[in-house]
């Protein structure tokens, strides 16, 4: 996609999110009669719609403009209190927001909307119009609704000639304008839709000769006369998207002999030839231009839109002139006020310290980092080799070793720094769920309070993206199957309003995300019975509560009495589990009948590089993530013998389950004299891994093994050792699960 389109899309998405948040805030106001009082939200929604409309117009996306325009009219009426806001209206706006999203997606992908959606759009437009005041003659409204902006304007032009204003628009460009990629012609086209450009005089006298031309600098300018029934604001809006890179002046032609503004413009432009050009092009008769000395005497409010609006400077209207030239002044004042109020809300003005970075650039850096880590490993192992051979160049060797160690430290810092760039707060993603929770609850008649906490917890960008769908699914489940309908809740002595919590917090090298509800909890008996029925569990198997709850992730295990289309037939949860496992995460469930349920997802912090401990198991080397290691124990022959046949050892009084990794991985029984146990933990669980040899710490880049190995449980990737050999990386979470 075009870079400019991408920015348009991102900006629209920002606006749409603001819009949605505000709508949901309004929906959560319990007393419907108070809705119209929430002016802040109404204004937010209005401005968002307005911004989208303006940007869309820039690209010629007229379908979006028409739609946004209708919504905007309604919102404007709400702002002015000519209509009252009702819950129905809010619902309509939410649906409209969805439709707008589809329109924007279609346009940015250069696709057409399918017939179904086109019809939806038409229906929505009808409904939006129906809320407008003075809407009696429905037939007339209907036919108007189906017209495009062009037709609407044409009619306006025919019907209300007296309302057409004549504007002089003077356009110059800042030096970076061309690099924005914005097409000036598209601006002209749009202005021609709003009205008619009766004159377009390109300003060429600033263009240097070809030898002296800097091709990327805009020297060209334009002087336009636009006849249209629009306000100055509406013309400014057309340029909103390139605001910072355009030097715009908008003057209103008036019947009176008042021409101070044009002289001010001449002064500001500082272009010798401008005056004559305007005369030649019939903008103004020669007489209106006063000589330079005279114009200095006039202290007038500047009509031009400066780059950074400084409010104090704007309100500079000398008192006498206010009385004499009222109509024009009021327009100026109004627009000054408007532009002042626009400043703090323009979403695209981001704080100066932020950078928008293409995430593929970060990925590239991470790849380089990975290579560097491998090379450094090589250096370290070469250094060790030298040390082992007892080289006579001992001094150099220890220096070398020191250097290599230092490198390693530095690499860690840089690596951490790069990984940190990819970290984003989960809150942004979580916020998007508000709408879904809202819609879902309303749809099935549940009353739910949705509380998000720990939104500032950070996770790798990819992980956040991939965890989104599973979370949504589980939230839907909580609302659908967890929280009871208000009557039932009251009967149980609970508050009618249910509560769903979504929280995130860090915990010893992992991030935990919890979804908790105070609903009816999971019915162990039913789940177990269903699983036995499905053949997933043997009769008489002794499962812990935790294991029984986990059965809900097996395919086909929905115990819901009727299948609602919300969370379905029990097909979803196994996909959810798969998605989380792919992220090397685990899921745990706690539940109590009539009290509620809690699902906890644990995710590792980073994806690409981990510190590990190298061990030998049979013929292969394996790596255990350092984070998960509790301690290492060497088993003496005696201990080995006493252990024979048991799956656990006595660790300082506690029973520690043991996993013979060699057997698990079908390695030959090694002849190694030594056996070692590496005690690992994941969350609260611990297990001892029986391995042959301990080989030491090893910082490692996790490389995927590839699709051929995707079904292996217990191995999460590979790492290239300094020697070029490959070591396999244990998936501790999976191993621990297997051991229980």
């Amino acid at each position: 996609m075009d870079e400019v389109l991408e920015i348009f899309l991102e900006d629209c998405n920002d606006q749409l999110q603001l819009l949605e948040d505000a709508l949901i805030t309004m929906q959560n106001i319990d007393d419907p009669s108070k809705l119209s009082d929430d002016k802040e939200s109404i204004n937010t929604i209005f401005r968002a719609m307005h911004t989208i409309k303006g940007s869309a117009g820039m690209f010629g996306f007229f379908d979006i403009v028409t739609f946004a325009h209708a919504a905007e009219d309604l919102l404007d009426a709400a702002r002015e209190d000519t209509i009252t806001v009702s819950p129905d209206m809010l619902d309509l706006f939410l649906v409209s927001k969805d439709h707008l999203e589809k329109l924007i997606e279609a346009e940015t992908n250069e696709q057409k909307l399918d017939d179904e959606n086109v019809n939806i759009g038409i229906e929505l437009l009808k409904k939006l119009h129906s809320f407008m005041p003075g809407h009696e003659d429905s037939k007339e409204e209907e036919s108007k609704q189906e017209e495009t902006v062009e037709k609407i304007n044409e009619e306006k032009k025919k019907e209300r000639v007296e309302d057409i204003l004549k504007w002089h628009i003077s356009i110059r460009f800042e030096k970076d304008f061309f690099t924005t990629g914005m097409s000036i012609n598209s601006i002209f086209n749009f202005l021609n839709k709003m009205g008619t450009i009766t004159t377009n005089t390109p300003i060429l006298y600033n263009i240097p000769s070809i030898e002296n031309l800097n091709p990327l600098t805009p020297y060209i300018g334009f002087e336009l006369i636009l006849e249209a029934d629009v306000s100055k604001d509406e013309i400014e809006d057309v340029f909103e998207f390139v605001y910072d890179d355009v030097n715009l002046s908008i003057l209103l032609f008036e019947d009176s002999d008042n021409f101070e503004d044009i002289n001010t413009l001449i002064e500001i432009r500082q272009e010798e030839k401008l005056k004559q050009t305007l005369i030649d092009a019939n903008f103004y008769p020669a007489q209106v231009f006063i000589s330079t000395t005279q114009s200095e005497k006039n202290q007038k409010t500047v009509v031009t839109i400066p780059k950074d609006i400084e409010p104090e400077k704007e309100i500079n209207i000398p008192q006498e002139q206010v009385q004499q030239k009222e109509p024009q002044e009021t327009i100026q004042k109004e627009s000054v006020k408007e532009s002042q109020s626009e400043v703090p809300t323009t979403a695209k003005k981001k704080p100066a310290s932020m950078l928008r970075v293409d995430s593929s650039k970060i990925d590239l850096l991470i790849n380089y980092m990975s290579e560097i880590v491998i090379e450094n490993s090589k250096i370290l192992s070469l250094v060790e080799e030298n040390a082992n051979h007892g080289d006579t160049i001992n001094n150099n060797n220890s220096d070398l070793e020191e250097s290599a160690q230092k490198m390693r430290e530095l690499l860690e810092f840089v690596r951490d720094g790069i990984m940190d760039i990819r970290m984003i707060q989960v809150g942004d993603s979580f916020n998007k769920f508000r709408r879904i929770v809202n819609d879902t609850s309303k749809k099935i008649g549940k009353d739910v309070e949705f509380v998000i906490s720990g939104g500032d917890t950070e996770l790798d960008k990819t992980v956040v993206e991939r965890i989104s769908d599973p979370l949504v699914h589980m939230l839907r489940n909580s609302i659908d199957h967890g929280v009871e309908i208000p009557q039932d809740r009251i009967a149980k002595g609970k508050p009618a309003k249910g509560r769903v919590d979504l929280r995130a917090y860090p915990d010893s090298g992992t991030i935990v995300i919890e979804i908790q509800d105070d609903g009816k909890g999971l019915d162990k008996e039913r789940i177990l019975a269903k699983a036995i029925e499905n053949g997933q569990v043997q009769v008489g198997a002794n499962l812990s509560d935790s294991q029984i709850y986990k059965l809900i992730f097996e395919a086909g295990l929905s115990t819901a009495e009727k299948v609602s289309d919300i969370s379905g037939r029990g097909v979803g949860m196994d996909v959810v589990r798969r998605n989380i496992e792919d992220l090397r995460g685990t899921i745990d469930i706690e539940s109590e009948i009539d009290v509620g349920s809690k699902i906890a997802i644990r995710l590792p912090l980073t994806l690409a590089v981990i510190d590990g401990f190298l061990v030998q198991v049979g013929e292969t080397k394996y790596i255990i993530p350092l984070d998960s290691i509790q301690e290492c124990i060497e088993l003496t022959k005696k201990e080995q013998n006493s252990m024979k046949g048991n799956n656990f050892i006595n660790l300082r009084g506690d029973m520690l389950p043991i996993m013979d990794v060699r057997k698990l991985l079908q390695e030959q029984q090694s002849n190694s004299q030594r056996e070692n146990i590496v005690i690992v933990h994941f969350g609260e669980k611990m297990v001892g891994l029986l391995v042959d040899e301990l080989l030491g710490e090893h910082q490692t880049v996790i490389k995927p093994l590839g699709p051929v190995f995707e079904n292996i449980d217990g191995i999460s990737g590979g790492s290239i050792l300094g020697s070029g050999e490959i070591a396999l990386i244990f998936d501790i979470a999976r191993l621990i699960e297997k051991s229980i």
Partner: protein
Amino acid sequence: MENVNIDNHDETLLEESSAGKQYFFFKAGGDIYAIEAQYVNEMLEYQHITKVPMMPNYIKGVTNIRGDILAVVDLLERFELGTTEISKKTALVIVNDIALIIDEVYEVNIIADEDIKASLDFGFKIKQRFITNMARYTSRDVEEYIAILNCEEILNIKELSQIKDLS
């Protein structure tokens, strides 16, 4: 043997002559086979392979190719004709990011279209679905028909990724 890179984007090499396409010829288990050259990323000397547990027998493990981890398949075992004996001539052929163990590299050459026959009438040592066509090939003065391999079937990820049943 040096690493021989067949650059898939090298137009001059892969230009289809009016006669036929380019193929890569090699030996596995005593028989000669061919693969369309455009599917072959690279050939290299046999090197260390790290075993990966719980996989079917013909998946020998993984190997390190310039920092990337690639799965390794013993072609002969995939054909269920035994296990490749590792010798000095043993090589790895990279197809679709998977390394195949073969006995010996022969050459890259063109097979004329008229020399390609549909494979119905021949008796096969290997599963028919692994073969696209037969081709007439002369090597060392011996003319024979050899199998042009169907890499999609041989390297079908769904099959390859099945965990070995622990019975």
